[in-house]
């Protein structure tokens, strides 16, 4: 019983970080129909920038901020140079283009930071007793922080002018333009936001599992699954899906090895595509 509760906590923690990655991805997809194959690599880059900054300044929070900002800028640059020319082309092309980007980013990371893994020290030290385990405070802190960022995004989309612009452009790009909304700018900003959130996840995740140059692939794969299960473009759905899938995986790893537990998320994806392809957490049409 205690094991199940512990896994619940684990699942929630992992789910929140995954939700942070996935919400960026689904936001990007919703507004410009781009499936960003390189999204996980943005997580990875953020983690590396974060690790380097922590080593230089000793502050985790500065590292988090600088990683988010750097990768946001980088993401905007990427969008403008590589993805903007592809607007309107078939999805095949954008998948291939972002795949190419992913390749370059991974190899660049090796070139820039070397092949060895990096570590980021936990900013919140110490543990508390959770049943029979010593559970790190940081895990809760990371989940909480991820939640705060997502909450901030939600408020931004609801209230801020630019948030309304983003929502309008997502619903009808043509009409948004006709209303004077600078859609090219909105696209770049959304990509930057998605990249920033990915980078933040990378830094938050760093103390939990280290920073390696190929950590991106796992994130990309998981984020894809979450986005599809949650409903492409559906922000709330992807958050719920992230938590749902992470919980299932956490429970599964009580029975099988963690390496095998990932199959759970794959199975969920396939079932979703078979029976509810628009997404498990999408409200059914009235």
């Amino acid at each position, binding site marked *: 019983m205690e094991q199940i509760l512990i896994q619940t906590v684990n699942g929630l923690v992992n789910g929140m970080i995954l939700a942070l990655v996935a919400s960026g991805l689904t936001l990007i997809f919703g507004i410009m129909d781009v499936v960003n194959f390189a999204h996980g690599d943005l997580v990875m880059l953020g983690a590396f920038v974060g690790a380097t900054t922590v080593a230089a300044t000793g502050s985790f929070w500065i590292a988090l901020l600088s990683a988010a900002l750097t990768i946001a800028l980088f993401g905007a640059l990427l969008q403008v140079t590589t993805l903007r020319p592809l607007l309107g082309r078939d999805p095949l092309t954008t998948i291939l283009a972002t795949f190419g980007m992913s390749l370059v980013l991974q190899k660049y990371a090796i070139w820039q930071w070397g092949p060895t893994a990096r570590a980021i020290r936990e900013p919140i030290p110490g543990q508390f007793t959770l049943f029979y385990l010593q559970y790190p405070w940081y895990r809760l802190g990371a989940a909480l922080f991820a939640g705060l960022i997502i909450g901030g995004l939600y408020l931004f989309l609801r209230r801020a002018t630019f948030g309304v612009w983003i*929502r309008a452009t997502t619903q009808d790009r043509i009409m948004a333009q*006709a*209303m*004077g909304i600078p*859609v090219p700018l909105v696209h770049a900003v959304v990509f930057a936001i998605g990249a920033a959130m990915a980078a933040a996840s990378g830094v938050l995740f760093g103390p939990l599992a280290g920073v390696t140059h190929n950590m991106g692939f796992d994130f990309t794969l998981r984020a894809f699954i979450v986005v599809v299960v949650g409903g492409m473009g559906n922000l709330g759905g992807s958050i719920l899906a992230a938590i749902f899938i992470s919980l299932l995986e956490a429970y599964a790893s009580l029975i099988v090895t963690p390496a095998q537990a990932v199959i759970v998320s794959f199975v969920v994806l396939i079932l979703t595509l078979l029976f509810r392809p628009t997404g498990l957490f999408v409200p059914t049409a009235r």
Partner: protein
Amino acid sequence: MILRLDNVHTYYGKSHILHGVTLEVNPGEVVGLLGRNGVGKSTTLKSVMGLVRPSEGSVTFEGQTITGIPPHRVAKLGVAWVPEDRRVFKLLTVAENLRTGLDRAGVDDGRKRALLERAFTYFPRLGERKNQLGGTLSGGEQQMLAIARAMMLEPRIILLDEPTEGLMPRMVSEIRQIIEALHQEGVAILLVEQNVPLTLEASSRVYIMEKGIIRHQAPAAELRQNMAVIHEYLGV
């Protein structure tokens, strides 16, 4: 002259839709554009708005060439578009829909409030449904919203694409009144319509289009006397 199209040719992929359209709208004028389905009336408006790029010819607005510039810049210059299918932002509230036209540079909160008040005066039903999602409005209400939204841009010309399509007669006369009210405010209107009587009533001049080119133009008064021309081109 506030808007002028000069020999505009526009393609949709390989289809040659506009074959050299030339027309003019003067400041504050209501100009009608009549024609059968598919002759290119909507494409004409889209060419002005920059939603499709003319391959030949030019579009001039207030003396400035705007051919092919991005739509969001055209809107900023003072051209508003009310599309045929209304295209209300379904998942935004009525207020948020209007906001997309209000959130511009150089508009302070006071003016925003004044503009909103005006919209709700013109369209009281929208005021009642301020916080309702755009997609939950009826067809007629969505049309009102689309027009009100365009008005938030404080445009000097509004491109109205078939505003009365699919509406009940009572709504049609409401639209008629809105057009008149806008005209009183000095806003020019390029009105694309299939509803001939409405167009002849509301416009001062009318162009008749056939197969992507202007075939005839005349003052509305003249056409009202001589319906034969209308019958000839529109088979009405």
